[in-house]
């Protein structure tokens, strides 16, 4: 147990990196290309994107923490099932709590809360990080990756709602600006799932243009 004796400060450079790396350099969506399916499904409007982002951040942080705490007890042969059980219990708990205390939010998310279970980022981080690392770094890794996922989700949701419905967070921006009178038309394509891929594609393009170390990463 030599590793346990080293005292890392809570926000040592190593730990800070766990938090910041997934935001840009190792972003789960644009670099690891995980969690794309939910990025397509829920980003038609900004509001569900934001709520989904918050839920994923909470669930991922806690799931990583729990798996890391019990990592030495989990039999390797059934580890995937154990992870799934932990994630789905957390998702069911979140759903129940939202329904009791934040009923409107829970209605808005409806089926998407359940979709969190299938979010490959969570499974991916549990398997790749939390099952081999101590609780605190695992928690940071979970939060970091969830934030990396979250900001892409919010950006995609922002553009899809703005261009597809002419609104931002339900506020009819284009109408207030008088764009429709001068012949502006909402782009119906942005409402459809492929539009999310186009926007994610553009983000990846800009992203790689700015970070040369990501090019030809294979």
């Amino acid at each position: 147990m030599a590793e346990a004796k080293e005292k890392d400060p809570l926000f040592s450079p190593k730990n800070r990196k766990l938090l910041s790396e997934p935001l840009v350099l190792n972003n789960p969506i644009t670099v690891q290309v995980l969690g794309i399916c939910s990025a397509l499904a829920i980003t038609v409007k900004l509001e569900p994107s934001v709520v989904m982002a918050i839920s994923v951040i909470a669930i991922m942080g806690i799931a990583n923490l729990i798996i890391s705490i019990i990592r030495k007890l989990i039999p390797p042969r059934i580890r995937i099932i154990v992870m799934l059980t932990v994630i789905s219990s957390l998702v069911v708990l979140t759903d129940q709590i939202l329904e009791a205390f934040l009923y409107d939010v829970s209605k808005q998310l409806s089926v998407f809360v359940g979709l969190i279970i299938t979010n490959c980022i969570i499974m991916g981080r549990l398997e790749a990080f939390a099952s081999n690392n101590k609780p605190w770094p695992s928690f940071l890794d979970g939060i970091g990756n969830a934030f990396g996922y979250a900001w892409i989700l919010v950006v995609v949701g922002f553009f899809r709602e703005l261009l597809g419905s002419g609104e931002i967070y339900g506020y009819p921006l284009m109408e207030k600006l008088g764009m429709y009178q001068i012949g502006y038309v909402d782009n119906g394509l942005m409402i459809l799932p492929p539009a999310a891929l186009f926007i994610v594609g553009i983000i990846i393009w800009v992203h790689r243009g700015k970070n040369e170390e990501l090019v030809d990463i294979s």
Partner: protein
Amino acid sequence: MSDSYIFRFATIMVVLVAAILTLVASLLKPMQEDNRRAEKMQEILGAANINVSRDSAIHVYQHRLIAEYAISLQGDITTVYDGSKQEFTKGENRPFEMDMKRLMNDLERYEKGSLETAPTLPLFIMRDHNDDSLFVFPLRGNGLWGPIWGNMALKNDLNTVAGASFDHAGETPGLGAQINTDQFSEQFENTRIFDDDGEFVSIKVVKGGVENSSIPGDHGVDAISGGTITSNGVTHMIEDGFRYYLPFIKKYQ
């Protein structure tokens, strides 16, 4: 790690998780039920053009309720719950507590002959802002991804629509999910479910717009672009829903 360890681990984990989830679910259930009841009241009030927040819905509902009826498939009133006295003048089960999902199943089974007793249908008589009484009919149907439901208020002639409210469990945001917006439900105002000859024609949600179709303006509303299957679901829901009430409507019109 031995097999027996794996079994022990799995058993403990499953029991633990089940216990936690059951505990939380039963602790939170009363709050969730209250939310759902308040929401149902809010939706019924919404159809009667009374917009309230969910917190004040229970209070306003009591104030605006004239009576809750249960109606047999033959059109007879079997239960009357008086809203102002808050007591039953006939029957003993509150129509408000009827579960629409179960009711739709029962109706289907009854028509197929696999259910003996005929179900009864709920109907809410509300007082609107002008002190006119409105008949609010609850409806339930299927959208693209799951159930959709709504309430439609008819004026005293049991023909003209005074208002409507719709909601859904999980239709696509920005597309089918728009059925719960005011822009959609406001279109139903002053449409009619019977034509001039007294035939039931219902109200259709028309793809491409009512103006461009052969359907007269008082029997159709515009569909949601990109939400065709949800829109069709609303059309079927209204038509199927009112069909069960037709004997009652014909009797009291």
